[in-house]
Each structure stands twice: as structure tokens, then as C-alpha cells.
């Protein structure tokens, strides 16, 4: 039976109204065919290409173009983007706000990408912040967070989170910590900060639809740091304990909130971390036997969770 035939049957049985039948029938028969997603994809690619081209041009030709022309041009683009967004933005709301136009999100994203280029260019050429040169990255991250929350934009939120991560990396090298261990600490601090922001947002009921993005980024940073620490040779016991605790918290959160990505994180990362530690020095036969037994055990454990909690497809 085709979907169109099923729709007819549901209408006849009274499961849907004639109005719903008409609306859904138009979609199923393709009398109405949306190209909204294709438009979004083209806009996104277009903005990324423009920003990349601007950066490449400035990098390559800054000596010929001159600082003034570059800064004026970039400022003009940012100004136009800001003008477009500020004149069309809907009033702020702590809840989810639909974009006023299809273009809006992409103009804002373009503006933010160009701001990042311009701040980096100014700092590189004029050293405004002196020894604290990395401040421009933190300023960019702060600006992106403000823009993301003010205009309810997921693209800019992603940009803000990745820029903040970059600042953590830079800050660390500024202080002279070059080791993988200090990078792990930095990643853990970053993960904790981002998760804390997510928790605070939830508590304050501000942009709750952003919370998941915060938690996914935080979980990934923390799990990668902990997992790599298990076999690092320094503080392994602490990292192992931390990894197991984090896994427990992640699985419990995932099951409770039906966010099964966190269950997957809680299974895959600790398995990888602990396995690398355990198989170190094992014979090839031992490694294979370990893989067979531990893999089977993990399959059984996840099947158990899937059967009890995660049936939804």
C-alpha cells in the first residue's frame, strides 16, 4: 500500500481531517515540493566561500592593498551585516525565536566570520593588546556568544564555542605549557566551563534549545581529554577514575533525558581508553581474546540498555 493510499484510508477512518488529507496529500503527491533546505545549503556554502575568499585575499595581497583599504573594506562588510541584522531582528526572547528572514542567519554568520578575520588582522598588524595578544580571540568568542544568544543563531553559537576552544589552546601556550598533559587540563577546564554554561542556561531558562549543543561539545572535550589521559603516563589513576565517573554521569544523563548520544559517549570513550591501557603488553592472542570478550560484553550491555530504554528509532 502506498503512502497516498494510506492517507485516503486514514481520512475515511476519521484518523485525519479532510483538511489534513489535502495538506499531506499535496506533499506526498509532490503537488507541493519544498526547496527550503536546498536554499539553506546554498546560502551556507556561499557564506563560507565568501569568508574564505576574503581571508585568502587579505592574507595574500595585504602588502599591495594596504592596511587602510583592508580595514575599511572589512569594516564596511561587517557594518552592512550588522545593519541588516539589527534592522530586521525580532525582539529578544529567552525562548526560541524564528529567524525574521531566510537570509538573516547567514548574513549574521558572514558578519561574524569577517569580524574574526578583521580582529585577527588588526591585532597582527598593530599589536593593540601587546603581550596579551590572544585577547582578541577571547573578545571574538565573547562577541559571538552575545550575537548567538541575542539573535538565536546556532551557526554563530558553534562559532563561539570553537573560538573559545581556540582561546583555551592559545592561552595555554601563552603560559608556556606545551605538554599534552596541560592540554588535557585545558580541555577539561573548557569542557567544564561549557557544560556549566549549559547548566546555567537551563536553570535560568535562557535558550534551552542551545543546552544540548553546549553539553555535546563539553562531553566531547572532556571525554577526549580523559581518554587520552588514561595511557599518558602521568596521573593515569586519576584519569581512569575520572573517565569512569564521567562515563557513569553521561550514561545516567543520557538514559534519564533520553539523549542516547550521551549513552554512546559513555560506552565508546571509556572502552577505548581502558582497552588501550589493558592491551598494552598483551600477546596478539591475548589482544584478540580481549577484543572478542570485551566487545561481546559491551554489545550485551548496550543491547540491554537499548531494549529497556532506547527502543525509539
Amino acid at each position: 500500500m502506498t503512502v497516498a493510499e494510506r492517507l485516503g484510508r486514514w481520512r475515511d477512518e476519521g484518523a485525519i481531517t479532510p483538511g489534513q488529507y489535502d495538506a499531506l496529500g499535496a506533499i506526498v503527491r509532490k503537488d507541493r515540493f519544498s526547496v527550503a533546505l536546498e536554499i539553506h545549503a546554498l546560502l551556507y556554502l556561499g557564506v563560507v566561500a565568501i569568508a574564505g575568499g576574503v581571508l585568502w585575499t587579505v592574507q595574500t595581497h595585504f602588502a599591495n592593498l594596504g592596511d587602510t583599504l583592508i580595514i575599511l573594506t572589512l569594516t564596511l562588510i561587517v557594518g552592512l551585516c550588522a545593519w541588516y541584522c539589527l534592522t530586521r531582528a525580532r525582539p529578544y526572547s529567552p525562548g526560541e525565536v524564528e529567524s525574521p528572514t531566510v537570509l538573516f542567519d547567514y548574513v549574521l554568520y558572514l558578519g561574524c566570520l569577517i569580524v574574526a578575520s578583521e580582529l585577527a588582522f588588526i591585532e597582527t598588524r598593530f599589536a593593540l593588546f601587546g603581550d596579551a595578544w590572544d585577547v582578541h580571540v577571547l573578545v571574538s568568542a565573547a562577541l559571538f556568544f552575545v550575537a548567538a544568544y541575542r539573535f538565536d543563531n546556532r551557526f554563530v553559537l558553534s562559532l563561539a564555542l570553537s573560538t573559545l576552544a581556540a582561546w583555551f589552546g592559545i592561552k595555554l601556550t601563552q603560559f608556556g605549557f606545551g605538554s599534552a598533559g596541560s592540554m588535557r587540563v585545558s580541555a577539561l577546564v573548557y569542557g567544564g566551563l561549557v557544560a556549566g554554561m549549559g547548566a546555567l542556561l537551563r536553570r535560568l531558562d535562557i535558550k534551552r534549545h542551545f543546552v544540548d549543543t553546549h553539553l555535546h561539545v563539553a562531553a566531547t572535550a572532556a571525554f577526549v581529554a580523559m581518554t587520552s589521559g588514561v595511557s599518558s603516563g602521568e596521573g593515569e589513576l586519576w584519569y581512569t577514575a575520572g573517565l569512569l565517573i564521567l562515563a557513569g554521569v553521561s550514561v545516567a544523563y543520557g538514559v534519564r533525558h533520553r539523549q542516547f548520544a550521551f549513552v554512546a559517549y559513555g560506552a565508546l570513550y571509556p572502552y577505548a581508553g581502558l582497552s588501550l591501557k589493558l592491551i598494552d603488553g598483551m600477546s596478539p592472542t591475548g589482544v584478540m581474546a580481549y577484543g572478542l570478550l570485551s566487545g561481546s560484553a559491551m554489545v550485551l550491555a548496550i543491547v540491554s540498555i537499548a531494549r529497556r530504554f532506547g527502543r525509539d528509532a
Partner: protein
Amino acid sequence: MILYAAEDEARIRTAARVRAWTQSGLLSAAQGTAIEAGLRVDVTRTNRYLRFALFAFGTIVVWAAVGLSLLLLDLNEEWALAWTAILAGAIAVALAAFLVVRFRLYRFGIEEALAVWSVALVTFGAGFFTSVARHGDDGPALVACVAAAIASVAVYRLFGYLYVACAAVAALAATAFWLGLPRFGAHLLSASMLIGVFFAVRRLRRPHGDDFPGDDYGVIEAVAWVGCYIVLNLRLTLSVMPSFVGIRAGADIPAAFYWSTYAAIWLMPAAGLALGLREKHRPMIWSGLAIAIATLVTNKAYLGRTPNTWDPILFGVLLAGTAIFVRRWLAAGPGGHRQGFTVQALVASDDKAGIGVLSTVAAVQQPMAARTRTETPAFEAGHGGRSGGAGGGTDF
């Protein structure tokens, strides 16, 4: 699909559409629940994350089992390794079928791992077995490609994994490169095979439209079209996949063939988009857009011209401008649509999911890459001094 009734597949896919309609407000929650209850199928499913985790651990189990067997049986002979791989592949697919029949698993991850790796094991075994008999020619690679194509089709027919069907198309196309033909002949034969698949699957899809199995065939059709384009776009294959198709000397491409492919890479996006738009066939529309972008990106390389730094800007303006123009043109039509095409999100949840993917990509591409401070504070073209963000770093 042999292991699942066609009616069950159709019900599962209809239920997914009902869920999307409910999430988009086209049906009330109560209506959605009631209709979905009527579409329920007796299979064991799980969500995509646990499915992925089960696939990952299933992969570990399969490879550990194969490795342990080889070690315990102390198999060192090449022919024994080849037969073991083929046997392991047969056992894996049998086990996957058993899990489906016995426990009614459907896209559960573990049976997918067994089925998918059975293809890899059979492919490796067949190729390795041939290499034992024939050293130093393309025979093993050819046999491996043929085995991969046949095994993938078999797994698709049994379990219905669409990505395995796409792998079968790729494996079939790859066989042409191992027949000892001159390079242009290999490209031509590969493209011909893909066009053959395209028309064959298109013929299969027509009676079903978007209903199962037409939806699967539609994707395979689009994949074959994109594959044909990739094989014909010599700049793409030479630059991106030189190790794959650059096995033989690159000088045996006649100029006539080169410029014919240049014409083809401009005609194929137009034809693909026209077909997709005429039939409102989304996978073909996406494939048409993707290869149109690939043509624009590789055009200068084809013509042997040096790219300019502002090319991406022009490219971006073209993409965004096209999107804006199309959007406005459609919105200005009577009732906000033309020929049924509209820019309104009809099933909002589908579009939200797609935009969610884009925003994830936005997070992955970190424009402010973490940079270390350099020794030289002075700023010179192409060298730079202070570190910076926005991907500029010391080279800003």
C-alpha cells in the same frame, strides 16, 4: 528485501514520515500516536546513537574473532588466510541473518556490523586468493572489486542497507580501472557502467515513485549519476584520487577525450538538475547541485588557469545570489509557489534536522585555529609575525 517483508519496510518508512509530520505540526500528537500504532511492525529497533555504538562494538567482535581464529589455528599460508577470510565472511553474514530471523533485529547495529564486514572479508579473501595464483598484475584488485560488488548486492538484497548498495555501485565502477585498459578507456568503461546502473535503477524506481523500494532506488540512481560525474571529471579524479586512478602513467589521455569530459562535466549537472526538478526527485536535485559546485570548483584546473584568491568570493556570491534569486522568484509566484515548488518548509522537522547538520559542520570548521606565538614580531608577506586567529595565524 529478502529478510524483511516489503509491507513491513513500507510501514516503517511511512511511520517515519508520520513522525516528521507530527513534529512539524501537520498532525496532532494524538493523531500521530494513533496512526503510528496502526503502522507498528514486529521488529526490534533502537535509536541511531545506540545503533552506532552497537555497530562499533560489533566491528571489534568480528575482527577480534577473525584474528583469534587465525592465531589459534596457526594459519600462515596465504591460501589458508584467503579461505579463512572468505569463510569468516560467510559465517558473519549467516550470523547476521540468524539475528534478524531469530530476534527480528532491524537496523540494530550489531547485525549490520556482521553483514557489512562480511562484504569486506569476502572481498579481501577473494582478492588475496587471486594474488596467490597471479602475482604482479591487476587480477587480485579486479577480483576484489567484482567480489565486493557481488557481495554488496547480496547483502543489500538480504538486509536492505542502502549504503551497501551504494558501495556496490562504487565497486562495480572501480572494476574498469583494473582491466588493463588505457586510462581513457577505463574512465569511459567505468562511466558507461555507471550510466547503465543509472538507467536500470531509474527503470526500477518509476513504478514505485517515493514509496518503498522506490525511495532506495532513487538514492542509488543519484549515486550512480554522481559516480559517473566523478569518473568523467578528470581533474577531480587526478587531483583528489591520484592513488586510485593514477596507477598507470597519466599521459595516455587523448586531448579529444580530455575536452569531451570537460563538456560532460558541464552537461551532467544541468541534465541531473533538469531531471531532478522535472520529477521533483530530491536525491537527483542534490546530486545535480553537488556536481554543479564540483564543476565550478574544478573549472580553472581543467582549463589550466591559475586560481585567483578572490575566486571563492565570486563563487560564494554566485551560490548565495542564486539561492536568493530562486527564493524570491518562487515566493513571488501565485500562492508562493511555481509549478508546485515552494520555499516554505512543508515538513519543518526535516529542514531543522538538515540545518542542524549544517550548524554541526560550522562547529567543526574552527576559523580561529589555536596558534602559538612566533619568535618574530615583524609582519611580512607570506610569513607573518604575531599569531592570529581566523585561520590566519602566522601567515596572515
